[in-house]
């Protein structure tokens, strides 16, 4: 990056458990260095209502499970230079994909009607509709870097972020595994 302009970093939380965000916070002292070089502009860790127009790097956690996830993923892709799938749910669809063999209608009725102790009924207002399958991010938008892991090791996240800040291509062979 040129001059003293800070790199604009965003994070997003789709269908996941937020464990990948916890792993991001576990990069420890690198956070201090990141604060010097990076502006966190969007995500669960900051208070920003809209995804900004121009972002340098986005870390996206979670599978694409709903129409809302799909829209956000497309917005992120359109407004971001480097899109990173963070963790197994974003990379493989992982645990969220375990519903994929059950039709959505049957799934929702099992949980919200048969499984309800009170007020049975599938919620419709204010929640985005589920897609037929929970999908890996790469099946919805182009992904530039994948960091697998459940959660990914802080060292792998740190390697990717520091490589990008140094203008290098990260090499994750040996640093990551599924699961």
């Amino acid at each position: 990056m040129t001059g003293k302009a800070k790199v604009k970093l965003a994070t997003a939380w789709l269908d996941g458990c937020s464990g990948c965000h916890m792993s991001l916070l576990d990069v420890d002292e690198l956070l201090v260095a990141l604060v010097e070089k990076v502006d966190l502009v969007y995500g669960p860790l900051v208070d920003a209502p809209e995804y900004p127009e121009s972002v340098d790097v986005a870390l996206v956690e979670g599978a694409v499970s709903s129409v809302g996830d799909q829209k956000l993923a497309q917005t992120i892709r359109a407004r971001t230079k480097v899109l990173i799938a963070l963790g197994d749910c974003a990379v493989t669809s992982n645990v969220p994909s375990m519903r994929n063999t059950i039709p959505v209608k049957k799934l929702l009725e099992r949980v919200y009607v048969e499984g309800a102790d009170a007020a049975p009924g599938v919620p419709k207002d204010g929640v985005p509709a589920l897609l037929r399958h929970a999908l890996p991010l790469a099946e919805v938008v182009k992904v530039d870097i994948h960091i697998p892991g459940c959660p990914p090791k802080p060292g792998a996240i740190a390697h990717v972020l520091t490589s990008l800040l140094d203008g290098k291509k990260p090499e994750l062979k040996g640093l990551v595994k599924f699961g």
Partner: protein
Amino acid sequence: MEAKMTIRIDGELVKAEKGSTIFEAARANGKRIPGLCNMTGLKPVGACRLCMVEVAGVNRLLPSCTTPAQEGMSVTIRSARLDSYRKEALELLLSERNHVCAVCVSNGHCELQSLSQELGVTNVRYGYRYPKLPVDLSHPRYVLDHNRCILCSRCIRVCAEVEGAHVWDIAGRGIASMLTCEMNRSWGASRSCTSCGKCVQVCPTGALAEKGFAVEEMVKKFEAVERLAVGRGGVK
């Protein structure tokens, strides 16, 4: 002493026993070829397609586990091109069924997972299929989860060739192929299974596992069964 032949592996001249496969010749010289279906002591079948190698003068890849080494043969077992094909084969295996490592008993002890890690598979470039597959919990001690099966057939061969029971087979064709117990019985209803557990111990993934283990807990005793298979005079 058995007669030796000379072959070239990745440019290096090595001696190999006559009658050995390329896979065996490489291993005898301390050179590892990746693989998921081969096992010392069992007949090789070439099921997983990960041990594919380049043989000089042959215009297609050959599975090293089923290809006999020949005097003067020149074989490439590791190259960027081969690794890229092996990554594709791994990605196809991962996309074919529901390999959810995070909730698998074999997480951290899985050959499919560790080979993917070794070859640098960080994502799958093919669309996942999400097939609806059964889990057979009918055996009192073991479980068969078809979601995690890669159809390597080690279980079939160890049961037939070492235990002598031949409980397992593959039924169906192509993408519909499934491991089957006897003539499509549930495992618990099997009349020939001796409950020895060899199939479980040699399974490269979490498809066959002992009951009572949680995520990451199923550590298999592959080497013990392999020694047994070799000791019984199986394929060396």
